[in-house]
């Protein structure tokens, strides 16, 4: 398990680095960061200045003590209050389920779809999926994500009126079938944007990995043993081809989360990305900083999960 130990060390070091970057950036700026932010708030009150100073410190504060206090606060999820005096965690917990639902489902669909089409494309090289559908989806991937979001909104929302233009739901969600269907209906276009932005990349890498593993000796051996093609395709070739994709999956989480900010903004989808946008444009820096940490930790957790999965699927990493 030395592999997992090493990856865990990287996880902790990166977490520390991200925390430190978050601490340093506002303090690197010339002058009094808290005062500067406070002056940007409309109708600012002295309490707000106190809150900002608690978060970002004052120029003549001992930086080491401030740093230790900051690390302690961050690790206990105490991010202070927003400029309108709501605890940052309260706001984050309001947005979190929407983002997890939207981004989570879209990512799983994109990964599953991409991997399956990639496997199929490599297995049946030269079929119409391989020659037409996959390259087409891959070209879509290189388009800017806001291009996809806005064009889908324009076609299916504004012009055809098939889907709603914004918001995650039309009336406050309840646990009825109708409400769940309504949420799915609202999430369709933003979700489709994220799927289109990601799926093509998975097809491409999965197909290329799979083409490589199909020419390996162990696949030839499996054929010689007379195993069913289904078994060769899934257990021999695809299982090995998926390994690099797992690491890639974690790495692209950063890209997908970044893209989700744009998508949530386009569709006024009140998740974390929309909150992050609002926090930044209203200079609500305690909120902005906490969300930045959340995004980083989310990617880190995915990287660690991918490592654990890789270790489980690939015996070589266990002995290394």
């Amino acid at each position: 398990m030395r592999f997992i130990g090493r990856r865990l060390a990287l996880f902790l070091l990166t977490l520390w680095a991200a925390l430190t970057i978050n601490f340093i950036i506002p303090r690197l700026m010339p002058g009094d960061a808290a005062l500067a932010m406070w002056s940007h708030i409309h109708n600012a009150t002295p309490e707000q200045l106190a809150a900002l100073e608690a978060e970002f410190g004052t120029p003549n504060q001992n930086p080491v003590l401030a740093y230790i206090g900051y690390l302690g606060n961050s690790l206990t999820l105490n991010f202070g209050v927003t400029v309108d005096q709501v605890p940052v965690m309260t706001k984050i917990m309001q947005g979190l389920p929407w983002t997890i639902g939207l981004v989570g489902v879209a990512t799983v669909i994109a990964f599953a779809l991409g991997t399956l089409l990639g496997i199929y494309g490599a297995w049946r090289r030269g079929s119409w999926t391989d020659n037409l559908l996959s390259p087409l989806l891959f070209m879509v991937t290189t388009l800017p994500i806001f291009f996809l979001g806005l064009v889908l909104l324009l076609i299916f929302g504004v012009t055809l009126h098939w889907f709603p233009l914004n918001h995650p739901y039309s009336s406050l969600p309840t646990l009825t079938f109708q409400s769940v269907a309504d949420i799915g209906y609202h999430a369709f276009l933003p979700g489709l944007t994220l799927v289109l932005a990601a799926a093509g990349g998975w097809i491409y890498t999965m197909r290329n990995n799979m083409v490589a593993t199909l020419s390996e000796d162990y696949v030839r051996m499996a054929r010689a043993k007379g195993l069913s093609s289904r078994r060769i395709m899934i257990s021999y070739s695809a299982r090995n081809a998926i390994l690099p994709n797992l690491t890639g999956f974690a790495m692209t989480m950063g890209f997908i989360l970044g893209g989700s900010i744009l998508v949530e903004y386009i569709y006024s989808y009140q998740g974390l990305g929309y909150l992050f946008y609002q926090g930044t444009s209203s200079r609500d820096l305690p909120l902005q900083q906490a969300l930045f940490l959340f995004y980083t930790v989310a990617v880190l957790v995915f990287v660690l999960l991918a490592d654990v999965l890789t270790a489980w699927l690939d015996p070589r990493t266990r002995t290394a």
Partner: protein
Amino acid sequence: MTAIDASLTRPPTTPTSSREAISRVSKAILRNRKATLGLVMFLILLFVALFPDVITSQPWNESVVPQPLISQCRQDAIAAGKMPNCSQLPPSRAWPLGTTQLNYDVLSQLVHATGVTLFATVLISLLVTAISVVIGVTAAYAGGRTDTGLSFTTDVFLVIPALPLLIVLSTYLASGGLAAIVFVMTITSWAFGARQLRAQGLSIRSKEFLEAARVRGERSWYVIFVEILPNMLSLIVAAFLGTSVYVVATMAGLQFLGFGNVGDTLTWGTMIYQSQQAMALSSGNVWWLLSPIIAVAFMGTSFALLNYAFDEIANPALRKVTRRRLGDAAA
């Protein structure tokens, strides 16, 4: 397959002259459909960027709608008992893509923003590639603790999500102008390339010609600049093109959210932002929003096509499989 044969039959000792190299590259570009298309798209952009006035003679930073026309429109609206709505005019012969809420010509804005957008994209991509090369190659060449430290820094930057970091940084650099965007885009984007180039550098490190250079007692800078970098050129170009695709989209995305728009500098991202702010979509003024996002996608696609084509040219394994007949192999 003819290309492979040619390279096999050429005596390896003959040095390739630069003219021969150029003709080989241009032949490769012309033979590859993606490369040709990508290059044509890029040349179109370059032409528009260099000669905006050839495309349109309209000014881009003042109203193009004559005052009498606006007065007429107001009077008509009042006479009809409606709210006068005399800006964001629909496309017509005089303004083919319509006008903005200040009645600026959208086409002229689009054309005049091309130069800054292209310049910033290429500049950022060059800087990012340069940093990637320096960090990646240094890590691979130096090894040991230097490598551990640089690789860790690279991994940290790779894991921290780029767009959120960009947004955080841009709040503090709002007054910094175009230079600030170039700066924040550069320091957030180099990690991916650095990691790839380090891997490539490691695979080159153990090659014999480097061993020979070391035995000859060459200095480090000589080994890096004369022996290593020329051998990594194709990878460096690929890193540059890949970065450009990313930079075009990310810069516009950042500006679209309203971050990183600077003063009077007009880019496509700024246009998208302004049209969103003026609710162009719900006002039915679709082209004000659509034309800059199509332009961004066009530029991104141009770089992406060049990138795939470059991959295909540099990496024969990715070329289309053409089933060889037995006769071919024998001949």
